[in-house]
C-alpha cells in the first residue's frame, strides 16, 4: 500500500487536497460554523478524484502488477490520510480553544457551536459521509463525481445544521461551553463517531472493491 499511496500523492492527487488542510484553521474562527472545515477537506479530496479521472489514472493503475481492488483501496487510504491529518489539526486547535483560549470573549459569546469533543465527533461523521457517499458513489462507475459530491454535500449540510442546533435544545446548553462541560458523554460520542467512521469506511471500501472488479473500464 506504500507504493500505492506514493502513486496517489505524486501522480494522482490534486494540490488542493493538501491546501484544503488549512481549512482546519476555521476551528479558531468565532461566529463561524466550524464544521464546514470538514466539508472543505472533502472538497479538496474531490479535486484529487477529478484530477485522477482527467489524468487517466485508472487505466494506468489497473495495468500495474497488483490486484485491481488495490486501486480502490489506495483511493480510500489516501482519503483517510488527508482526513486524519485534518482531524489531528482540528483536534489540536480544539484543545487550544478549550484551554488557553477558553476565556476569550469571542468564544464566551459565540452564538454558533464552540469547538469541543462533540464538534470533533461531527467532524468524523462528515468524513464518514464523504467516504460512503462520495467515494462509494464514485466507484459505482469509477467515473461519476458530480452526483456523489452533491449527495455528500447534502449530508454534510444536514450534519452541520444538526450539530449547530443541538445546544439550543433545553438542557443541552452545556454542549457550547467554551472550556467544555460534562465531557464524559461528549468523549463517548466522539468514540462512537470514531468507531462509526472506521466501520463505514471499511464497509464502503469493501463494497467499492467488489463493484470495481465487475466494471468495464
Amino acid at each position, binding site marked *: 500500500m506504500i507504493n500505492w499511496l506514493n502513486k496517489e500523492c505524486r501522480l494522482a492527487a490534486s494540490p488542493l487536497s493538501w491546501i484544503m488542510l488549512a481549512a482546519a484553521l476555521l476551528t479558531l474562527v468565532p461566529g463561524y460554523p466550524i464544521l464546514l472545515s470538514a466539508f472543505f477537506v472533502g472538497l479538496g479530496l474531490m479535486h484529487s478524484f477529478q484530477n485522477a479521472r482527467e489524468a487517466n489514472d485508472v487505466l*494506468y493503475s489497473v495495468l500495474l*502488477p497488483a*490486484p485491481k481492488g488495490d486501486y480502490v483501496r489506495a483511493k480510500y487510504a489516501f482519503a483517510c490520510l488527508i482526513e486524519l491529518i485534518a482531524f489531528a489539526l482540528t483536534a489540536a486547535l480544539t484543545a487550544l480553544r478549550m484551554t488557553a483560549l477558553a476565556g476569550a470573549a469571542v468564544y464566551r459569546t459565540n452564538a454558533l457551536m464552540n469547538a469541543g469533543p462533540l464538534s470533533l465527533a461531527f467532524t468524523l461523521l462528515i468524513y464518514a459521509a464523504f467516504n460512503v457517499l462520495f467515494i462509494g458513489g464514485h466507484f459505482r462507475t469509477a467515473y461519476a463525481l458530480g452526483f456523489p459530491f452533491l449527495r455528500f454535500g447534502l449530508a454534510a449540510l444536514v450534519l452541520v445544521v444538526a450539530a449547530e442546533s443541538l445546544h439550543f435544545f433545553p438542557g443541552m446548553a452545556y454542549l457550547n461551553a467554551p472550556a467544555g462541560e460534562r465531557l464524559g458523554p461528549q468523549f463517548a460520542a466522539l468514540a462512537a463517531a470514531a468507531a462509526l467512521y472506521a466501520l463505514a469506511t471499511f464497509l464502503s471500501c469493501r463494497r467499492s472493491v467488489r463493484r470495481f472488479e465487475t466494471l468495464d473500464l
Partner: protein
Amino acid sequence: MPVLEVNGLCKHYPGFTLDRVGFAVEAGRIMGFIGRNGAGKTTTLKSILHIVHPDAGEIRYFGLDFAAHERAVKPRIGYAGGAVDYYRKKKIRDIVDVTRRFYPNWDGAACRRYMDAFALDEEKTPQQLSEGMKVKLNLTLALSHRAELLLLDEPTSGLDPVSREELLDTFRFLRDRGVAILFSTHITSDLEHCADDITYIAGGRLIASEPLAGFLARSAAEGAGDTLQDIMVHYEKESLYDKLAE
C-alpha cells in the same frame, strides 16, 4: 508453448458482439491484429487484459490462466494504448519512479538505455512530447520491467512516416531478442514490414489467424488481393457510391 492463448473470447455490447475470437501469439514473433474501425480490436485487447470483462472465453499467458494468475502474469506483459495519455502534466522522471516501485523485475539500466536511445528527456512532461515520443515513453515503461509480451493498441496511429519506421525498427529489435508483440492497427502497410503472423477480425468475428506469408499467398490465390489493404478492402468494402446514388 504460446505466450498468449485466447480461445472463444466473447463480449456483448448493445449493437456489437465480439464472437468467439481465438488466436495464439508465440515468443519472438510479431502478430499483426487487423480489422477496420469498430471491428473489435480494442475490445479484444481490453478483454485479454481484464480492463473489460469478457462474457466467455479462456485467456492464458505463458500457460497460466489469467483470471487465476493475474498477479503473476502482469509483470511479464506490457500494454501500450498508443501514445501515453495519462499524467500529462507530470514529469517523466516522476512517472518512471512511481512505476518502477511496482515491478520487482524492474531493470533500471535497461530503462536508462531505452530513455537514451529514444532521446526521452525525463524533465519533460508527456504533454510536451510529440505523439511518436509518447509511444516511445510507453514502450520504455513496458520494456523496463522486461515484458516478454507487448500488447500494443494502434501504436503507429498519428505518427509521421519516419517515426513509424523508427517504431517498426524497435519492434524488429525486440522480436529478435525474444519479445512477442501483438500489435493492433489499421495501417496495414506497417505490418507488411514487420509482422510474422496475422489475426484478422471483422464485425467482431475472426476471419483468419495464421502466418502472414501463408495468409497473403492464400488470399492472392483466391483473388482477394496481394496486400493486406487490398484483402481488407476486398472483403469489407461496401459501395457507398451505389448507396448514395440510390
